[in-house]
């Protein structure tokens, strides 16, 4: 059942690089990360790759396999034919450090711009009461393993480097949505979403949802509802007029 597969692995660093050819053994049940490890152990001991859990839980092993953003540890070799050449490159939206490893610091900087959870000041630890149905939406977004594949595939920054300045990408739009839907949060993040995180850049073309290994419905359940909440405040003929009377940016108590 073992066979020899043909791989093209991108090797190089920020100053240049290219796809390199390898013939490597593949056994039953293996995933792409196993093959990369076999290359390390037998042919190129210094091939750089990031991984931790090898179980799709940590989001470290993100790369592009035959042009598709994927987790290497969750891409089974059996999804390819034995004749198929398999091309593995690093994520192409972030600067490359070496081989398959990229510099994802963009994401950590954006994370720092998200206003943190702000519970009511007078609520003591242990007294939090939240219904399951009220936390479920935010829980979906908290499944995120921060693999940054959605960030990688998002054309807003993938194809337009300058937009990184003003756009935070799908991962952090759902983080904003998560907090905005939190039943005990007291901050209104809608203006921040538009002004600091560039919500309007997203043209809901849904590639983020297509690649998310956690199956989070990033657009349908996160970004679109967030856009709709912004519309509630800014553009809706009924609600936004109503809210003129309920003035103020900060919600003093959690919104209903």
């Amino acid at each position, binding site marked *: 059942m073992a066979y020899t597969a043909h791989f093209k692995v*991108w090797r*190089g660093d*920020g100053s240049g*690089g*290219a*796809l390199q050819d390898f013939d490597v053994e593949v056994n039953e049940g293996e995933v792409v990360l196993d093959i990369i490890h076999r290359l390390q152990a037998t042919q190129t001991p210094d091939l750089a790759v990031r991984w931790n859990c090898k179980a799709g839980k940590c989001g470290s092993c993100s790369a*592009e396999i*035959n*042009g*598709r953003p994927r987790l290497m540890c969750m891409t089974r070799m059996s999804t390819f034919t034995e004749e198929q050449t398999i*091309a593995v*490159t*690093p994520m*192409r*939206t*972030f*600067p*490359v450090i070496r081989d398959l490893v990229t510099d994802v610091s963009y994401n950590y900087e954006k994370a720092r711009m998200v206003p943190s959870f702000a519970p009511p000041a007078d609520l003591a630890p242990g007294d939090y009461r939240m*219904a399951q*149905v*009220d936390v479920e939406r935010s829980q979906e977004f908290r499944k995120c393993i921060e693999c940054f594949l959605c960030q*990688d*595939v998002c*054309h807003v920054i*993938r*194809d*337009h*480097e*300058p*937009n990184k300045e003003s756009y935070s990408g799908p991962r952090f739009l759902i983080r904003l949505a998560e907090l*905005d*839907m*939190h*039943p005990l949060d007291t901050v209104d993040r809608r203006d921040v979403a538009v002004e600091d995180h*560039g919500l*309007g*850049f*997203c*043209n*809901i*073309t*849904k*590639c983020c949802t*297509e*690649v998310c290994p956690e199956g989070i419905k990033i657009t349908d359940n996160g970004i*679109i*509802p967030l856009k*709709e*909440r*912004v*519309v*509630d405040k*800014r*553009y809706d*003929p*009924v*609600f936004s007029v109503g809210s003129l009377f309920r003035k103020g940016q900060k919600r003093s108590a*959690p*919104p*209903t």
Partner: protein
Amino acid sequence: MATTGIDTPGRAQVGVKTLRQDAWWIQPALVVLGLTAFVAYGIWRVFWGSHTYYSAPYISIFYSPCIASSCVPGADEFAFIGSWWAWTPALLVAWIPLGFRLTCYYYRKAYFRSYWLSPPACAVAEPRKNYTGERRFPLILNNSHRWFFYLGLLLALILTYDAVLAFRDPQGQWGHMGLGTVLLIINAFCLWAYTLSCHSCRNTIAGRLNHFSKHPVRYRMWTIVSRWNRHHPKWAWISLATIVIADYYVYLLASGHLTDPRFF
């Protein structure tokens, strides 16, 4: 700027726009075909159809509600715009479904991918150098989807009313039914499905709330709308098809190519 996007210095230089080996271009190509065909059909019906949109008791969706006094007798129930309106009466209402669909979250995805090629498919580089998204005029107008949703509801009501009127015979007697009645009912149903599965609908029903538990009825409705919402793209296409079928049927009747099979 020759080097932006995936060619930005510092990123891994791979040299090709995509390494995808699958036929990623099929999907956008099909969407272009489908939407272009529909738009062509729509233009033909709106500008060249002013004599073939009504065949009692059926009215074409492109012209309903017919609100100009130039509307053909029988279809002019809602007419309140005077004879000064010289163009086709379709223009008075067709902007509503047009705007509704142009600003629809699903259609936006479809046309941004297929016509704008931004992006043509996931992880396939888009050809354009700059991209500002929906933050400026005119695309910022997509935020008006909420307004169109409200109008869309109204329209769905009227089309339901049209379907009810189709239970008359050509002379206006109630209690009759023909093939056209069936088509109008199906069409109205699909439009409801499309309209109620809308993301704006989902938000207004309860999505904007943070405490579902305090609004059990709205929450129940939200779960139902959410279920339909998952199939919104499907309803977008199905309803497009039923519009064409129902309208073309009216055209065939009105232009005398066909007579309506009556059931009773």
